[in-house]
């Protein structure tokens, strides 16, 4: 590539991805010409003692497969193979000359997933439900273990005899005699009303 021979400045040691298409030795100013093809290297170019800020990866245009970004800022395939290159040349001519497979290949150069592929249901909900049920079960195990090994005896106020005395005292006090508790008790016959 002729660009490689153009700039002979310092190579950076911060290259993150092997697929960086353009050379490390490119001038920052020249590199800006290729913004659309993600050609900016992550290197620092020094010139005359001044530094140019390192271009971070996340500040470059990125490719996203999203419904709300139907046309991403960059093409998916950055480095075209020779076959793809020739296909791109053919694309400059009449499109009726392209076969269906070639059109699909051109699509796949520009995009990673089709809309149908990217919107496909994932079945993640099954994992979510499985996780929910699992942790519910685990909670149940913890509760049962607690009941057996942690909790002490019930207080004496839970004994049936004590409960009977409690009920009798409530009836004696005429708790809710109109529509509630004592209303259901027949005081004449000393039994619950039918």
């Amino acid at each position: 590539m002729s660009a490689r021979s153009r700039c002979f400045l310092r190579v950076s040691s911060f290259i993150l991805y092997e697929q960086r298409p353009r050379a490390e030795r490119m001038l920052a100013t020249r590199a800006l010409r290729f913004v659309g093809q993600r050609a900016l290297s992550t290197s620092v170019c020094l010139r005359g003692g001044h530094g140019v800020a390192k271009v971070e990866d996340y500040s470059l245009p990125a490719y996203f497969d999203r419904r709300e970004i139907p046309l991403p800022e960059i093409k998916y395939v950055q480095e075209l193979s020779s076959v793809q290159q020739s296909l791109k040349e053919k694309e400059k001519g009449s499109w009726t000359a392209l076969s269906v497979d070639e059109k699909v290949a051109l699509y796949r150069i520009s995009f990673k997933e089709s809309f149908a592929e990217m919107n496909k249901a994932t079945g993640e909900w099954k994992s979510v439900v499985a996780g929910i049920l699992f942790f519910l079960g685990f909670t149940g195990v913890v509760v049962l273990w607690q009941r057996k090994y942690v909790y002490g005896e019930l207080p004496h106020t839970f004994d049936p005899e004590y409960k009977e005395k409690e009920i009798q005292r409530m009836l004696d006090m005429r708790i809710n005699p109109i529509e509630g508790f004592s209303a259901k008790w027949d005081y004449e016959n000393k039994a619950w009303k039918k």
Partner: protein
Amino acid sequence: MSLPKPVMRGLLGKRLRFHLPIAFTLSLLAAVSFKVITEPRKQAYADFYKNYDAMKEFSAMREAGVFESVRPTGE
């Protein structure tokens, strides 16, 4: 792409035609439920106090021993 022209008129009327019957029904339901719940309750209270002898009830409670100010007769 040729999208159909959106509806421009009659929006309030459409909304009213949908929501007003629902509103009326629900309000009516609320009023009826109110009556159905409160009338029997008022009647129950009236029936209870129609032949309520306070002194008899008090004596019965006293004998049962629930009071602290008066003990059952005989103690």
